[in-house]
């Protein structure tokens, strides 16, 4: 019962709740570390973490970021379509389930707020980590501030329109 409540809480405002049916030993998490490393390398090598790329994108002065996000969405869509069509299972044989997201006003208000921050910092949460790794240690302050922002959201969540 307690577990159920924990899952429900976790599900609030989350893109996903990853409640795997199959439990794995702890070292299985290293898989995600490896995927993360590949992801971080792409971020730096395609210069997606650059503040300048974000300015180009929002000033409509370069196609680059639109190309990246557009390609990623198309590849993601095709992959998900294939997984659904052929009912492809995970490595450990689990069925892959997709849940529908429900609409909330948060997607509008929060989306606008994040967009404003994105253009200022030149980073969404992923690139924040890669920027720090790339040697821009000062972005550590941005990161701590982002954690603080998340915390403050959690604190005022019940009072905000959803």
């Amino acid at each position, binding site marked *: 019962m307690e577990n159920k409540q924990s*899952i429900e*809480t*976790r599900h609030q405002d*989350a*893109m*996903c709740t*990853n409640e795997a049916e199959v439990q794995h030993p702890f070292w299985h998490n290293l898989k*995600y*570390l490896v*995927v*993360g*490393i590949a*992801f*971080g390398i792409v*971020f*730096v*090598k*395609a210069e997606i973490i*650059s*503040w*300048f790329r974000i300015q180009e994108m*929002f*000033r409509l*002065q370069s196609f680059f970021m639109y190309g990246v996000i*557009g390609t990623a*969405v*198309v590849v*993601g*869509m095709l*992959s998900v379509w*294939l*997984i659904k069509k052929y009912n492809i299972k995970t490595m450990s044989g*689990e069925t892959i389930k997709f849940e529908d*997201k429900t*609409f909330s006003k948060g*997607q*509008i208000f*929060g*989306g606008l707020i*994040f*967009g*404003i*921050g*994105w*253009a*200022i*910092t030149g980073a*969404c949460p*992923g690139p924040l*980590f890669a920027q720090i*790794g*790339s040697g821009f240690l000062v972005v550590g*302050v*941005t990161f701590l*501030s*982002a954690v*603080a*922002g*998340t915390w403050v959201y959690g604190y005022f*969540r019940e009072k905000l329109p959803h």
Partner: protein
Amino acid sequence: MIELIKQPWHWAVAGAIIGLTVPTLLLIGNKKFGISSSLRHICAMCLPANIPFFKYDWKKEIWNLFFVVGVLLGGIIATQFLSNPDTIVIADSTKASLSALGITDFSNLMPSDLFSVENIFTLKGLFFFVIGGFLVGFGTRYAGGCTSGHAIMGLSTLQMPSLIATCCFMAGGFFSANILLPLILKLF
């Protein structure tokens, strides 16, 4: 080969690899791609402060923290071993507009005019690190996801709310880059 890797990668290559992260995470462990949630798990881990929103078993989501630590390590590896020897190519029009706003350093991925340690306790630091970062953390959680969760994972699974969120990310960004940012930069 290594010379080719050291060059900046084409958008189609980067986009394809980022897109492939979606099925990779699904297939290796039924995980839905999302990054901003890591900030929430850090709150739940370090300072839940009895706030209901942070009272859950964050250990169940520890994969997400492994993932973002990987992103950080990837940043180190790419910069230390695979870094592009040439300076970054920025659109001339962007360079011109930013120069007019007082940005002088176009040699690196981030302009040192803004993103340097000396700026931490200045007005620049307040805007670009403290306020900017706060908006990113607050906004992504309020929206229920960021570029990865909504724009990539959400659109890949054809979620209408994610399309709305993505449009709002872009609208906020257009407003911020074209109207707010020039005002902020004029302060210095």
